[in-house]
């Protein structure tokens, strides 16, 4: 049996952790403003954050909020911790920036620092680097949040060597953005975590719809 031990959900300029809104920014004019305010609220010093594209920042923050106050990173072998993410837009938001840089032949400056983010799985890479997680990776693209796919795949990993997993949805498309990340671990005898539910489709859908957004 595998359990969900914590989750975070970011949308509507709010961050919810295990169902309660923990941070909100009513005045953010843009995705990037919201992301940088949410980053400041965590009081981290991680200069690499500022180099990331919006999708990586969103995934980074959502995972950070989900892990706060848990012993997730210290209780598992990091080489047996998987990261499985998904979204609809792939890296399209950054793809548009790269495409724009090559559209005008008289102002043709493709940027390597932009191009490197034109792959959706870079978000997995950024999480792996931050937390030294070296286990299984997969980035799926689906039109909507697909609980079946994520649960099935996570279970298939945990039938093998994987002991724990960071799983979810990280999507940025124009001014729309949403992230939902949950932490999964193999059952232990004791568990002091805030939420504690068996990993299955129904529970994931319940958690996905649990937050009462304030606006």
């Amino acid at each position: 049996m595998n359990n969900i031990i914590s989750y975070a959900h970011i949308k509507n300029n709010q961050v919810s952790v295990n169902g309660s809104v923990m941070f909100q920014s009513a005045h953010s004019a843009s995705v990037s403003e919201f992301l940088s305010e949410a980053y400041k609220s965590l009081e981290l010093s991680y200069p690499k954050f500022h180099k990331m594209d919006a999708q990586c920042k969103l995934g980074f923050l959502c995972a950070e909020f989900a892990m706060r106050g848990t012993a997730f990173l210290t209780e598992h072998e990091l080489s047996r911790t998987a990261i499985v993410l998904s979204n609809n837009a792939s890296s399209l938001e950054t793809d548009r920036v790269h495409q724009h840089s090559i559209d005008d032949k008289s102002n043709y400056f493709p940027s390597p620092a932009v191009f490197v983010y034109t792959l959706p799985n870079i978000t997995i890479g950024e999480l792996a680097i931050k937390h030294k997680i070296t286990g299984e990776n997969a980035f799926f693209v689906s039109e909507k949040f697909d609980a079946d796919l994520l649960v099935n795949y996570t279970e298939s990993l945990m039938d093998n060597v994987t002991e724990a997993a960071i799983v979810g949805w990280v999507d940025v498309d124009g001014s729309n953005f949403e992230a939902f990340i949950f932490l999964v671990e193999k059952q232990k005898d004791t568990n002091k975590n805030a939420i504690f539910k068996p990993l299955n489709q129904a529970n994931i859908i319940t958690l996905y719809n649990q937050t009462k957004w304030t606006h």
Partner: protein
Amino acid sequence: MDALIEKLKGQIIEQLNLAEVKPEEINPDSPLFGEGLGLDSIDALELIVLLEKHYGIKIQDPKDGKTIFQSLRTMAEYIKSQGKS
């Protein structure tokens, strides 16, 4: 030269998204890579784009970047030597 160095500081902070670095914190003679500003291989490529975009200088062999991008001062000296400041 000092004016060019100041201008480069701003451009580097912007182009490389060094949001937590203030211009006055960058010593013109400190190494840009490694312990200095902690830049990495993508930043090195991005500096090549910066030179081309803002100064019209094309570095043909990226290996030359090693000497050009040692510090802000070497970068500024290189731009001067190309007559592009």
